């Protein structure tokens, strides 16, 4: 897998016509399949969007930090399950 920390830049940040799988996590973490097309996308993030490729541990640390600093859901919202921290 390829672990990328990069910020959503809006339209076509993750394009419709792509040939790789990507899963997004809090902390601006994106986990890509390890393929040529995914590596091209990751390299574009480094070159043009201040992104960086990180280790799995570094990606998890970014997720942990975002989760620990999470915003609250209004108390009037009924019956939400207990928040669960995403784990890579």
């Amino acid at each position, binding site marked *: 897998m390829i672990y990328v920390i990069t910020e*959503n*830049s*809006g*339209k*076509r*940040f*993750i*394009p*419709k*016509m*792509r040939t790789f799988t*990507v*899963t*997004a*996590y*809090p*902390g601006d973490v994106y986990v890509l399949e390890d393929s040529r097309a995914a590596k091209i996308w990751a390299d574009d993030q480094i070159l043009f969007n201040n992104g960086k490729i990180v280790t799995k541990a570094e990606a998890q640390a970014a*997720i942990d930090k*975002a*989760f620990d*600093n*999470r*915003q*609250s*859901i*209004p108390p*009037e*919202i*009924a*019956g*939400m*399950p*207990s*928040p*669960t*921290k*995403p784990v890579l």
Partner: protein
Amino acid sequence: MSSVKLKHSSGNGTIINGPVANPSADITLKVPSTTGTAGQVLKVASANHSATNAELEWGTGSSNEFAKVKLDGTTNSSKAAGDFWYQSSDGKFYFAGTATGAWSTGGSIASARGIGSGNGTLYAGLITSGWQGSSYLTSVEEYNGTSWSSKTSCSTASYGPFSIGSTTATLKYGGYTGSYIKTSEEYDGSAWSAGGSCIATVGMSPCGAGTQTAGLSIGGRSGSSTYLASCEKYDGASWSSTASLSGNRYNMSSGGTQTAAISAGGYDGSTRVNTTEEFDGTAWSAGGNMAAGKNSATMGGVQLNFIVSNGNTNSANWTNTTELYNGTTWSAGPTAIYSLSATLSGGGGGNCFTGGGVDASAYRTYGQEFETTIDTMLKAEVI
């Protein structure tokens, strides 16, 4: 068998033979009186056709010759995913790929938020109100399929309203302001004005369908543990009661028109339901069940082509799973880009947009787009 040989000047030639078997009687074939045009075929004319006589003419062949054929071998009168057909206008074969669609990121909204309302389509959408972590919102943003722009704020700061209609004729109703409300506001593309108040306090997160002048409000929540099954119709000025859902719930995914609406999922006070109900303008009937109960989800579409994604389930606060409805059954769709709940979303048949939403960390500015793809994967010239 007799034959006629038409010799080339160099010696060889073309031989035209008599019939391969003895006819029951002499037959007559009459050739056309013109040379036709390039690409035409020689076919039997309907005039003067009998067992012993045929007049030949130039033509394009019968329509059945190149009938559209689905990959399972059956013919079909409309183009849909999986169809393979000949298009006489350009002389090419086409194949329509499976219409599962794809998610991508869309333009980001200006104001991070969740639990607001969305209406319109992927190419002309509107989001209104919501919650950004500490306060109720009145802000409005419009999407043009590429980017968002700020619009005139509505009057009532709330989260959990529902909105229907287009970007130039929106109806927003219900919501939570610290109190459960039943008022509505109408938007004409530039300004908001008061609309008629619902009969019941539809309150937090009712859902709905239709337009500003032919709307439908479905369910809702009027107290901390009071969920509604009641439904109301709007005619552009006032609300009237209509048939109720089969059970009390709020936060469903809904769409369609006042006379062909769909409501799926939601929360009934104890569980996230996976049922679907369809409204024909008079009564509700059961549709297919989703694979999982889902609450506060992304939604878009019409009764015959509807999408539900994101949202929370009985075990997860934020999901990226997608289910697609074809008017009868649900099927798994591609996963959304982000795992979110409480997005502001809308869409037409086969398309959907989201703005905002909340994930395991924060209220977001993310935009997402879903668009059904009909790919002309094969184009082949007829030779």
